[in-house]
């Protein structure tokens, strides 16, 4: 049933002389192109690109799309990614002419509707974080981290403090150390603790007056709430450092507890996760940050301010904070994703938002319970929005790895969980069901995993069987990477 022909590479489908698009004739007086642009600036030959018809292009990409798993088609319990349903109304509304076709340099008086939305978004994100000052500029979580660390650096600089160290637990997401390094800090990674939680004593041993920031994901990557977070925050603050909350797991605590209330000084959101972005097979995202008031003046610009005149008329303006660290990117931000987050928050309201987290936690714990006999969870009694199970038992008893289980799940019509992360758990399967999945789906997923637990290991090592491809040889691919198509590929 698959159309294999249409999913050849564009370059293989190309036929000289084919064209998909037609463009208007020039309606201005004809002049020799040399009079406009001297030939030395112009290309002698056109780039060699594929020549296709419109129908080629459509059939190619439509068929390609069917080679993806996605939230629209499959349960996608990828841990730490919050693969929740992406409401279709968001796509319709973000596409409205008044939003989709607005130029970033349109003047403020002609962008008031947009600026109002962005201002309200700042307000809502500040309230949800418990951290009042917000910048919508970061393009994704990682840039939010980087931005916050630059804010911290600027803050310490102004206070004449030379703090060089950023500390984080071993389960921290890779972007945490990477952002810290980019911001010029030295990275200190805590050793894993048996509980899966940060060990205050161990942390204490690293805290000193060179400590700039302690970065912590809470709930953490194991799906556990750092119960000592306030004590930890206190310790960091006593050492004169700042606490950064990686907000990737906010889906667990919306309206239940707030980073600002449990000691965080700075945080980022992943709008594409928590506020149903969507993910777009790798982006775009939006990583707005929220910080305490004393850090507000360092935020990157522009931010949106609301001005109310005597007569009550309201105007929204763009402004740069007084001691801004500067710009992190061109234009305002990943507005298209921020809009979707705004639509989501305006749809849910306070109670709806809290219900999101309550059900995310309920679904995770229900699934955790159903799997505990075959995929036990080493750390913790319960979990928040996700949990990290271990296939170690299956590995030891019958040589079935977490990877085998993950790949086989694809045959059952489920996307795989995140595997082999965090490293503290052997044969880790990090499972985040999200609140937009049904009990029936969780039951079916559990049934599949139970079935797999009894399937022939040899067969499992070769899984999957129903996907377009199976077990690519990544090692070989890495040895001499082929990163573009070249004609010789087809010889």
């Amino acid at each position: 049933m698959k159309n294999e022909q249409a999913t050849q590479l564009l370059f293989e489908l190309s036929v000289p002389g084919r064209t998909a698009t037609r463009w208007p004739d020039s309606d201005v007086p004809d002049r020799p192109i040399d009079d406009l642009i001297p030939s030395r600036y112009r290309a002698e030959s056109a780039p060699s690109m594929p020549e296709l018809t419109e129908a080629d292009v459509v059939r190619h990409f439509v068929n390609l799309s069917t080679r993806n798993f996605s939230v629209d088609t499959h349960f996608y319990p990828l841990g730490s990614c919050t693969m929740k349903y992406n409401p279709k109304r968001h796509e319709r509304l973000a596409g409205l002419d008044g939003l989709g076709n607005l130029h970033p340099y349109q003047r403020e008086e002609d962008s008031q509707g947009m600026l109002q939305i962005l201002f309200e978004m700042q307000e809502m994100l500040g309230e949800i974080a418990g951290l009042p000052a917000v910048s919508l500029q970061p393009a994704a979580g990682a840039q939010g981290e980087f931005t916050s660390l630059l804010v911290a650096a600027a803050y310490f600089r102004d206070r004449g403090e030379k703090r060089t160290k950023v500390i984080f637990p071993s389960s921290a997401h890779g972007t945490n150390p990477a952002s810290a390094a980019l911001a010029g800090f030295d990275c200190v990674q805590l050793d894993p603790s048996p509980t899966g939680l940060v060990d205050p004593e161990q942390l204490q041993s690293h805290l000193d007056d060179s400590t700039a920031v302690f970065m912590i994901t809470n709930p953490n990557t194991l799906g556990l709430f750092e119960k000592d977070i306030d004590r930890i925050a206190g310790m960091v603050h006593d050492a004169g450092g700042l606490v950064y909350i990686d907000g990737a797991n906010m889906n667990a605590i919306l309206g239940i507890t707030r980073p600002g209330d449990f000691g965080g000084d700075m945080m980022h959101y992943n709008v594409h996760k928590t506020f149903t972005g969507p993910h777009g097979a790798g982006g775009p995202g939006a990583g707005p940050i929220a910080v305490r008031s004393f850090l507000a003046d360092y935020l990157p610009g522009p931010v949106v301010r609301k001005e109310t005149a005597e007569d009550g008329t309201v105007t929204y303006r763009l402004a740069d904070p007084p001691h801004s660290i500067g710009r992190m990117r061109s234009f305002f931000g990943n507005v298209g994703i921020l809009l979707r987050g705004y639509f989501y928050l305006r749809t849910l309201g306070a109670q709806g938002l809290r219900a999101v987290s309550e059900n995310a936690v309920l679904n995770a714990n229900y699934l955790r319970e159903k799997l505990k006999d075959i995929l036990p969870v080493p750390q913790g009694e319960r979990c928040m929005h996700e949990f990290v199970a271990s296939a170690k038992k299956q590995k030891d008893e019958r040589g079935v790895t977490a990877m085998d289980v993950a790949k086989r799940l694809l045959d059952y019509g489920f996307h795989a969980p995140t595997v082999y992360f965090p490293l503290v758990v052997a044969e880790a399967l990090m499972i985040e069901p999200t609140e937009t999945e049904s009990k029936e789906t969780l039951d079916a997923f559990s049934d599949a995993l139970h079935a797999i637990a009894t399937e022939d290991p040899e067969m499992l090592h070769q899984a999957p069987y129903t996907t377009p491809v199976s077990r690519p040889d990544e090692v070989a691919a890495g040895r001499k990477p082929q990163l573009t198509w070249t004609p010789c590929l087809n010889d």
Partner: protein
Amino acid sequence: MSYLFNTPQQTQEMLAAIGVGSIGDLLEQIPESLRLDRELDLPAPKSELELEQHVRSLAGQNVTATRRSCFLGGGAYDHFVPAVVDEIASRGEFYTAYTPYQAEASQGSLQAFFEFQTLICQLTGMDVSNASLYEGGTAVSEAAFMAMRVTNRHDRVVVLGSVHPEFRQILHTYTDHLPCEIVEIRCPDGVADLNLVKEQLDEKTSCLVVQQPNFFGCLEDVQELSDLAHSVGALSVVSVDPISLGMLERPGNLGADIVVAEGQPLGIPLQYGGPYLGILACRNEYVRKIPGRIVSLATDRNGQRCFVLGLQTREQHIRREKATSNICTNQGLLALRATIYMSLLGADGLGQVADLCCRKAHYAAEQLTALDGVELMFAQPFFKEFVLRVGNGAERFVGAAREAGFDIGPLLTRFDTLEDPVRSEGVLVAVTECRSRDEIDALRDAVQNA
């Protein structure tokens, strides 16, 4: 209405299975003292109907490129987006998928990104491209960092003053805390003064950053500038407008070592500045120094050709603080849009669009500079964008255009790193294939006496 599935009865069943009495019991993992004892202070929820009415009314307050004839430029342009781009990019299988870590479950996106990388290389004349960065501005900074790694020179980056002011601001923000010095070279004539450039380049310089066409729309001598950079062992980093490559020489043929670009013109809507598409391509020898995700060809266990995320050891999720960048989520969906756009247009279509932009821009310049008190700020060749010098003040000029239904700009006063007279008397004008001669003539008439 929070898109939930669990009914009250199911919730009870699930709680029973877990062995707790209520969801509250599950939340006791959070110390009581930390729990919020009130409801969040957020606006009341809206039904889809109410939300749509609310958003439509706000959207109606924004003046868009379809409501007012758009001559706005400065890095984002009102180019035509074929319907096919929207129709395909809006397929749920693409936009509701995650980063393609599980190759077997993501061949659709992986192949599209591999095609993107190839098309970018064909367009720029470079050897390898990554699978996207955030946008054109951060791409410049990522290229500068990459150049430092390649040259192992971490003290000096030289950037032309004709590079987009925001790109330069970002470069400063990204490096202020580092020993690295950012040297900006004034371009009073609208393009690089090769002597000034030569003076600033030295053995500590990691790279020279050039924009082509530059922020003023003018054309730089990329070959000369690359040679100068190479003469001191620095890399040539060139930021391009992808549409211009339908006509202009490919930077790969002009000595560029790293090419970056803002991909918005390739089928991406304006949407007030983002999400857009950061493009980065380079020469083969630097491949392991590239920031961001890359898709690689591979073979599966049945010997079948397939696609996987390649060279992951460069990336933060493996290399952590040693990674070539902290980027994780990139701009996948926009890379897909650009891929569809490029495969629809091909070299021929891109050539036609570039030709239309170029001809219409020159006609507009000719018509506008025919008015008294209006002249070109720079006597340089340009592509689709140019800076006017207007005696009676830019604000008045732009205002008159706006009154008559034309948006031109941005006003250069907003960029405080620009110098006078450019900043005070300069008006940037961009002309795309969407503008008609009638619109241009009407604009001219509208600003006659401004």
